[in-house]
């Protein structure tokens, strides 16, 4: 049954006693055409597109905990397509286009909110670097504008222009960027995939691979063995761990990124803002909390919690940029475990192991990728060839040197 204001009214009459489950509580079948490991945004979106666009409906998504319990459920929800390098540009724009019709695709209000993102610059060099990026976007038909300080003062009068340690000179604006309600994205894909017949199996951890002469034929799980023609892993943060079960070593490290939210306050910030002279970016959730974050903690970690120096560093950035938030209180602090790849860009590819496919290395930027990642991974799983927009996210690019290193810092994950 479709969600709409009418169905709401209808159910109000029956005191909301009759709402169906958003997705079935499925238990594992013996065998599937495709098993997707990981019930995060990417895994669920992959299942959805397999079922809807490629007619592959005998699909299971295996989640070790509760769906969305990983990074999909703990990210700062920024969506944007303001990348500057071939490989990324087209892919993230594909994703942005999918975001723009997501509510209709899923019949679920994921609150995609295109309130815009502004990356601030504080020096001529930084301005030119953003100009390079923005121009690359425009060449690819993506919206981008370079704001000077006057334009910025009109849009963001509350920034610290008067007493800035590093002058706030302007910013790169992408108006179509914004945020989406992260949990809703997970639930929306789950419900839509479920309605197409996909089994979403929670509390089902993959503990190993079943292999016949080198090729994967299924997975071992905490809920028994499950056979599969093909297995796709989308286990962000735990990719090395799962890949090791198949004897693979990846160009990936697991790092913690923290995020913070303030007490809910009345509307204060228009869109998404990133500080160019420190580690701080922020937006305001529909609930009213300032949602902000900064740099990763900087050392390998699976602890899913952060430390104090980064929290202080982020708040220093916040106060340097907008001292008006000083008396707003920080309500909660958390962390997520992410795949940090060696060039800061993702991997969507086959693996050297037959029937095993990988979707990994999303670093701190994979939420915005969710729709396109799902579509492209589904494409790869269904057709055994890369989607055109994901054709550079290859596993062997590190060996060949075809790196996609937006930051230009090289093979050191904690610097990306």
């Amino acid at each position, binding site marked *: 049954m479709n969600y709409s204001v009418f169905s709401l009214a209808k159910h109000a009459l029956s005191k909301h006693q009759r709402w169906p489950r958003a997705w079935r509580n499925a238990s594992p079948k013996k065998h599937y055409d495709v098993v997707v490991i990981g019930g995060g945004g990417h895994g669920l979106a992959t299942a959805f597109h397999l079922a809807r666009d490629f007619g592959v409906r005998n699909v299971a998504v295996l989640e070790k905990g509760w769906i969305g319990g990983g990074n999909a459920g703990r990210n700062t929800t920024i969506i944007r397509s303001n990348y500057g390098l071939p490989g990324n540009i087209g892919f993230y724009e594909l994703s942005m286009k999918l975001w723009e019709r997501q509510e209709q695709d899923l019949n679920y209000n994921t609150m995609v909110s295109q309130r815009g993102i502004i990356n601030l610059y504080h020096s001529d060099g930084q301005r030119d670097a953003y100009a390079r990026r923005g121009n690359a976007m425009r060449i690819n038909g993506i919206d981008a504008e370079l704001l000077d300080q006057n334009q910025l003062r009109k849009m963001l009068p509350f920034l610290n222009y008067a007493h800035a340690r590093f002058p706030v000179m302007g910013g790169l604006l992408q108006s179509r960027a914004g945020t989406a309600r992260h949990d809703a994205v997970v639930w929306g894909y789950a419900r839509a995939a479920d309605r197409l017949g996909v089994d979403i199996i929670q509390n089902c951890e993959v503990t190993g691979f079943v292999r016949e002469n080198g090729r994967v034929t299924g997975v071992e799980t905490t809920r028994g063995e499950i056979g599969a023609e093909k297995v796709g892993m989308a286990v962000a943060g735990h990719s090395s761990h799962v890949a090791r079960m198949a004897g693979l070593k990846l160009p990936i490290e697991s790092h913690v990124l923290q995020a913070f939210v*303030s007490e809910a306050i009345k509307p204060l910030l228009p869109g998404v803002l990133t500080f160019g002279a420190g580690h701080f970016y922020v937006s305001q959730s529909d609930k009213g909390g300032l949602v902000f974050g900064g740099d990763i903690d900087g050392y390998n970690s699976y602890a899913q919690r952060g430390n104090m120096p980064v929290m202080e560093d982020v708040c220093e950035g916040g106060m340097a940029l907008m001292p008006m938030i000083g008396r707003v209180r920080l*309500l909660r602090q958390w962390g997520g475990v992410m795949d940090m790849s060696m060039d800061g860009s993702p991997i969507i590819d086959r693996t050297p192991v037959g029937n095993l496919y990988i979707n990994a290395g999303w670093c701190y930027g994979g939420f915005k990728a969710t729709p396109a990642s799902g579509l492209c991974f589904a494409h790869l799983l269904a057709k055994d060839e890369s989607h055109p927009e994901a054709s550079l996210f290859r596993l062997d690019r590190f060996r060949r040197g075809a790196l996609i290193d937006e930051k230009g810092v090289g093979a050191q994950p904690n610097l990306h």
Partner: protein
Amino acid sequence: MADIAHSPAALKRAEAEAAAKPRARGASQARRLAGGGLIDRQKPLSFTFDGKRMSGFAGDTLASALLASGVGLVARSFKYHRPRGVLTAGPEEPNALVELRTGARLEPNSKATTVELFDGLVAKSQNRWPSLRHDVGAVNGALSPLFVVGFYYKTFMWPPKAWEKLYEPAIRRAAGLGSASGVPDPDHYEKAWAHCDLLVVGSGPAGLSAALAAGRAGARVILCENDFMLGGRLLSDAFEIDGRSGAEWAQGAIDELAGMPNVRIMPRTTVFGGYDGGTYGAVERVGDHLPQPSEHQPRQRLWRIVAKRTVDASGAIERPLVFPGNDRPGVMMAGAVRTYLNRFAASPGRRVAVFTNNDDGWRTAQAVLAAGGEIAAVIDPRGVPEAFRMAAAGWRVIEGEVVGTKGTLDALTSVEVADARGGVVTVPCDVLAMSGGWNPAVGLSSFHRGRPVWKDEIAAFVPGKCPTGLTVAGAAKGDLSLGACLQEGFSAGAKAAVEAGLSGSPGEPAQAADEPVAVRALWEVKAPGKAGQKAGQKAFVDFQHDVTADDVRLAQREGFESVEHLKRYTTLGMATDQGKTSNVNGLAILAEAKGEKIPETGTTIYRPPQVPVAIAALAGPNRDEHFHATRLPPSHHWAAKRGAVFVDVGLWKRAQWYPLAHEKDWLESVNREVLAVRNGVGFCDVSTLGKIDVRGRDAGAFLDRVYINTFSSLAVGKARYGVMLREDGFVMDDGTTSRLAEDHYFVTTTTAKAGPVMQHLEFCRQALWPELDVQLASATDQWAQFSVAGLKTRDLLQNLVDPAEDLSNEGFPFMAAREVKLRGGMRARLFRISFSGELAFEIAVPARFGGSLAENLMQAGAAFGVTPYGTEALGTMRIEKGHAAGAELNGWTTAGDLGFGKMMSKKKDFIGRVMAGREELQRPDRPAVVGVKPLNPADRLRGGAHVLPRNAKLGPDTDQGFLTSVCFSPVLGRWIALALVARGRERHGEVVRIYDPLRNGDFEAELCNPVFYDPEGARQRG
């Protein structure tokens, strides 16, 4: 040290005096008890709430003062805008939130129950319009049948564009509670570090006992108390310890601790988080109890406390009961009622009904009587507990449950009670004190992800695996009774002292009886039969977010069965009270709906901060101009005197250009500086370049391994340009290195990479090649190093150096480097290197003489019109000269891309050599540095513009590169640029399209040799 003015005893004293004198009692404080309490009746304070003037006493919180003044309605809830009153007496308060203070000091969402009253305090109710009593938002309540949990996920989807335009703005306006000031926070904040053997969190009986035991044993103890008064529940309850009243015992303990030099007592200090390595975060509210912080003092101070051991004695939080109408003003926590009566001498109401499922609630009835109040009834599904048989004689006791409440907007008039037989009686009363049992405060003990475990005896979760070094004591551990708290706290403190290696005697623990604490879980009142129909009010679980028991069940039916899904779907526990009163009730109701046991359902994850913390406190002094330190080069003061314009380069402030009075813009100044150099002579402070002394027998061999070219072969007295790669084969940094002695090289790096290169060299030395004898020292700040450039350079320097020095081309050839004597007895280093392409030297003297060097260069060059120049002119000349710099060394370029391919030695191992050989790094169509000249000299180039094939169609495949460095070349009289362009080296002379839509640039230009100026390099060798 403890703020003695606010210690219980001091206030008792003050009160005695007060009793003697005629009452100094705030006229409007109708509900203030005639006597008792730990408030200072000698210090009346006045404040306003929603513009209405009221009064209270020192020692009050805003909440207690409001109650004493008879204010029942203080706030509106988040979603349905329901009228709400004060529920608790602590940081767990979900209802009584106000906008505190005004203007730039406005603090939204301040909990009236934790705000310490001060004279002139101004508070405003929030999330209501036009007023607290008449709030149109209340219609949401009427619409609640539609606004069920999760409703917005199911609608607002059409038309697609309407979300940003229509629905979202409306939702956002409705959401949020208070407003931020919108202007910079005017107060100062500080950070500090503290170290101790034992950190004690909380100053109740458990905390005080722990501090006493450890302190007596000689341990360095820090005792942090969130409240402005120490004592915890001892301030609220009529306890007896060692034959004295609890409050008196607490005062004794505080006095003893205050007398110990090894103990630091920190009131108004909240330990908000525990992090790795025994590091705890705490916020000290230095000036929040004052109208504004006193001079030279911060508003708040962030403490990083490093503790060998920690005792978490943060107590327990009382649980509301979930029954229809439980959110009405006048319904309060039973423990809070005792706090208001005993500590604040403020009566929430005369006629009190108690609804409890545990023995502690009954003690509220006793407290009410003791305070001269009246017991309307005690309602307990268990009937009268054994322990209270005597006391309860003559009380109206109903074995049953409350199933509804009646009252006005701001007061309770009666409660509906369903008795055991299903009959419903109406009990008139103006306060309902409820107690659902106590939840140990498991926050701090769970922040390292140890999951709390269920304890049936107290029907609550208690700490599970605790962070290393932390032990829990008292109510926080689930030992709810006083005797146990004292004992537990004491032994925890004594143990910590021993573990910290102290042998002193902890003395004796204090003694007290254990009060009854029996409880029978009651997660939700389900009114039987007849009462069922009668009720029909909402039963709230999360008061602030208006999450009801029905909402919990609806979420469960829709499949949000994981407790984490429940939280995210209903927002239960996500309000400013962090679910302190709602989490456990919510998950218990979920467990029942799922037919699970509570421990199976489990808790959500506990995260810091334990209570919300002001963002400014976490930033401390690092804001505004002090966000980061500032580095000043040796000529800074001199340049400032000349009116230089400065630019931030990393942390450095460098002179960007030196404007003259008549010059109309920066370009005019920069052009003048460039031409002055090219036609005469000028100088520029380049001290910010990284400088590293590389010494030791194997210094040469070492540099051979870190540079692509060879340095062991460099002659003493010579300099050589070098390029370093990262191990992945891309360029890391470049610079000139001079050999000053057999075993002494002087390496320079780019300003930006000085730190990273030093770290890299140390790694190579210590981790990769320990066998080499190499020593490294940073000399960046040691030398004032200026570049002196231009035709007349030699003439100028001849004036400055000792006559004995030979600066002729033979005596001091290109790329020579050595020590020289200067007139006036100064020693200096002279390097004949050129960034500008002119005849140039770099001259270095000890940094303290940087100012003098500038003066003396001016003097020595006066005859030649010597001109100081800044970073802009420096950049212009290097671009004219085609030197790659920061913008070209962007982390994506190989030595080949930059034109240094031939420098890469094939005879030795060096960092990055192997990976630089990868196919993609060798492709012929890689970008290369080229020069760019607009066909029309009037066209202005801009950094970041892209290079496309002439009349190309826009699209992914047409992008061929971009402009990295741009300047106006005064010698060529036009804008020129360096660019990284695919196959650039082969394309000199080709016309391309320069595309810069961001700045409306779109014109044609010619690719050319990047060396625009003096390609043969005759001038620098001249």
